[in-house]
């Protein structure tokens, strides 16, 4: 397993973060018995992709950045390498215009925190080859992930439903109908959600959520997807959710790592 990031500081923090997350996974009974942990290497350039069997792209949710990276990575991988985009909203076939072998690109939306959430949303683009889907399925089997394959549209299923709902939940708080705490309590206590929409927003990262909502708004024209003022204010203030220690709620250092 090789982790590539342009930010050396992020790579330095990754080992401690992964160690912490592995312990959380143990605590939650999400680690199989008798399986040794894999080896992690890190790099600040994409050159290791030449040796990879699967490459997973999980950068900022912006079309221009993803398109450029998928082009660069796709020209360096061996033919037959599965190229996965972890996009939450951008149609896979739009991104498939950039790597030289578009049939090797497939969308796989891992949910946060990925070490605890076992089901992933797989997006088959118009040009995704059956053998690419099969190879991805083999990887997901090794990772003990279940998958649901869906068609290629902005936001697919999970983001298309969840992100406008979270945006509405923020509007409810913005309009003074209820506090963030109360909105979450109602969605958990009355409607059976595992986590309330505003704690979920903090977990996703409010900046990531705004990026995803912008993609959805541009591509669907749905006004519910236009990021609301309170969400934008929090991002501008640097309150990005769990990772920064504060969003709609505040978080201890331990929670920031999870």
């Amino acid at each position, binding site marked *: 397993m090789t982790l590539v990031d342009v930010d050396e500081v992020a790579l330095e923090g990754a080992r401690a973060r992964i160690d*912490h997350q592995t312990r*959380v996974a*143990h*605590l*939650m*009974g999400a680690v199989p018995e008798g399986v040794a942990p894999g080896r992690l290497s890190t790099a600040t350039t994409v050159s290791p992709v030449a040796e990879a069997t699967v490459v997973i792209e999980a950068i900022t949710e912006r079309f221009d950045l993803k398109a450029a990276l998928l082009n660069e990575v796709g020209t360096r991988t061996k033919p037959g390498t599965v190229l996965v985009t972890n996009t939450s909203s951008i149609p896979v076939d739009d991104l498939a215009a950039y790597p030289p072998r578009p049939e090797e690109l497939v969308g796989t939306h891992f949910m946060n925190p990925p070490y605890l959430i076992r089901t992933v949303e797989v997006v088959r683009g118009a040009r995704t080859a059956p053998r690419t889907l099969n190879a991805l399925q083999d990887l997901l089997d090794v990772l003990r992930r279940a998958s649901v394959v869906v068609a290629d549209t902005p936001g697919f299923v999970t983001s298309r439903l969840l992100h406008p709902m979270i945006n509405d939940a923020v509007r409810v708080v913005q309009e003074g109908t209820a506090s963030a705490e109360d909105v979450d309590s109602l969605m958990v206590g009355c409607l059976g959600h595992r986590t309330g929409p505003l704690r979920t927003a903090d977990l996703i990262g409010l900046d990531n959520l705004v990026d995803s909502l912008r993609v959805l708004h541009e591509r669907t024209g749905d006004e519910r997807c236009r990021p609301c003022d309170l969400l934008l204010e929090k991002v501008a203030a640097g309150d990005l959710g769990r990772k920064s220690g504060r969003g709609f709620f505040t978080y*201890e250092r*331990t*929670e920031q790592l999870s």
Partner: protein
Amino acid sequence: MTAPTHESQGHRGIVTELITFLESRTRASWGEDVDLFATGGLSSMFAMELVVHLERTHGVSIRGGDLRLDNFRTVRTMADLVLRLRTDGATDG
């Protein structure tokens, strides 16, 4: 409130310290046999905070098979775990 003070504590001292910690973090009161993660209680993600707290405050290292939610379910089970790990450490070392 330094680690050596707590390391010398017995079961009662650990229980008192943990209840103080829980009350400061949750602004609710807790008994030593209350299931912290039962309906209406703490989120299971809070368990990792308890792990880190026990390690920092009570000078133990919680690894491998001891990382089970059942060990953190009540204040009493956590105090039992701390005492057992200290004894194991003393025996091993």
